[in-house]
């Protein structure tokens, strides 16, 4: 077993930043819990790849609401809740039940997210407490895992509202930060499918660390043998894609299925595969820092004004916003935050220097 991070940050005060911190981590933990709970319930009847299969079914049967080129992450609570609320054949009905109350709770959870991130009004402590209670009710009645963590959040919010936190308004030299026990991560089942490339590595991390050399090779740390012969396709392209964001210590691990991982900062991440990448991965790797806009038959870097003529600009609306990942996936960013892949480019086909 290994874990996913389902810690919930407790706000220190009632400012919007502190409340959003609590909200963000609440929803992240809830998303993982929804996914892992569904996985335990569905993997036997539907197989371990049930999530990918379900998404592909939805894209096929209802491409208008489940756009084929969009990226749907299993741990995004919006994805599972939307399916649960709107699709009559949703597998989640068998996991969470179809009671009116539960469905209403799911709708409320989605609605809170939609209001806060349109910045009409500042979030309030009472709103977050209400949202936490709705999530708490859903979690409790579904035999999920994070109820205790949500209780801690609800208690903190109530303390903030009535002025019980912080306890000591007068700072004193002897004041100590209360020890907050770091909750253990949620145990993830070992057969949890791989995340998208760039996503958090959730399965156990192999101990053996391969090394990226200055000459662009990836070698076994003891035999110093190159992994070149195990790679499908162009080796230099693969290594560039895996390491466009340099893994810490220039160290990589390789799992038995050929998945390649490494630490980016403190987070273990899936960086790619020895073999071909899964077809459903539409935004592989990490976003580069550049933003582009479509202008006629050209694409312009919106910061530098640098322009490039490219066939892919045709067929895209003027002004459409594009981003590109370290893998060269070119993504159309919708106003609603959705992303859609419109092309995959090589460094030579793109703005010089932007793809390393």
């Amino acid at each position: 077993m290994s874990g996913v991070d389902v810690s919930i940050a407790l706000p220190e005060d009632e400012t919007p930043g502190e409340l959003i911190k609590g909200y963000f981590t609440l929803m992240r933990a809830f998303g993982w819990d929804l996914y892992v709970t569904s996985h335990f319930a569905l993997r036997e009847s539907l197989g371990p790849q049930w999530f990918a299969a379900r998404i592909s079914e939805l894209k096929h049967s209802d491409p208008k609401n489940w756009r084929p080129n969009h990226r749907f992450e299993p741990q995004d609570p919006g994805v599972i809740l939307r399916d649960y609320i709107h699709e009559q054949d949703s597998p989640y009905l068998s996991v969470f039940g179809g009671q009116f109350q539960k469905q209403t709770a799911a709708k409320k959870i989605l609605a809170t997210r939609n209001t806060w991130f349109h910045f009409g009004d500042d979030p309030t402590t009472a709103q977050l407490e209400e949202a936490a209670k709705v999530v708490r009710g859903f979690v409790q009645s579904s035999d999920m895992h994070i109820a205790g963590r949500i209780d801690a959040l609800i208690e903190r919010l109530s303390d903030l509202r009535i002025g019980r936190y912080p306890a000591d308004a007068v700072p004193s030299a002897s004041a100590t930060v209360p020890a907050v026990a770091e909750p253990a991560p949620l145990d993830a089942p070992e057969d949890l499918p791989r995340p998208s490339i760039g996503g958090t590595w959730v399965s156990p991390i192999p101990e053996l660390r391969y090394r990226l050399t200055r000459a662009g090779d990836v070698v076994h740390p003891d035999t110093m043998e190159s992994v070149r012969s195990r790679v499908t396709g162009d080796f230099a392209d693969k290594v560039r894609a895996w390491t466009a964001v340099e893994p810490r210590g220039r160290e990589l691990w390789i799992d038995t299925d050929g998945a390649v991982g490494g630490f980016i900062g403190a987070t273990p991440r899936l960086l790619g595969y020895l073999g071909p990448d899964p077809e459903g991965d539409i935004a592989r790797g990490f976003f580069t820092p550049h933003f582009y806009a479509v202008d006629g038959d050209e694409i312009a870097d919106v910061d530098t004004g640098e322009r490039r003529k490219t066939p892919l600009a045709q067929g895209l609306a003027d002004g459409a916003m594009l981003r590109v990942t370290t893998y060269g996936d070119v993504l159309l960013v919708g106003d609603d935050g959705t992303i859609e892949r419109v092309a995959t480019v090589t460094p030579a086909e793109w703005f010089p220097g932007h793809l390393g």
Partner: protein
Amino acid sequence: MSSFRIGPVSVEVLDGQHAIAVVPPSQWHGDRRERPARAVLANLKADDGLRAQVSLVRWDDSDEISLGFAELLAGPSDYERLEDAGAISPKLVGDKLVARLRALRYGKTGRATGATVEWAQISEWAGGDAQALLADLGATRTGAYGVLLPSATRFKTEPAIEVPIADPTALFAAYALTRVVPIMTGYGKESVEGPNA
């Protein structure tokens, strides 16, 4: 790939040339900019756990050539010294490389730096006649620097080696003997393996 063992060090010289970007030694105190180069790579291994890759680098836009740039993959931390010391800088003479050989030696500061060395010492590290062993590995000549490079004005009596640029295997052997082994054996340290007190 050619593999051999010299003294306590196993060396594998990898086939072909590899694109690489490194700062040439002439710019270590200059602009310190990495420049594109081609490199012949060799893996060095020893029983003490050493796993390092060293490169014989030739920069695209100059005659500068240097052997070193150790990338330490594993092993005792005193080998980290190889990452910033001990480069060999051969001279290109026709289709040959001529290098003067010094050895890393620990000094009073506790740091190993390049110091003059005799063939007898190098042979001791090699466990046999070093010049004969280097010749077996493809060195075209070994001997005094002043003989191998008549234009040399200094250090004429110091040991030197000449190898074909097309097959620099013996130069990696010289690196193993005069860089790796001195660190492994604590060459120059006053008391390397004292008795238990």
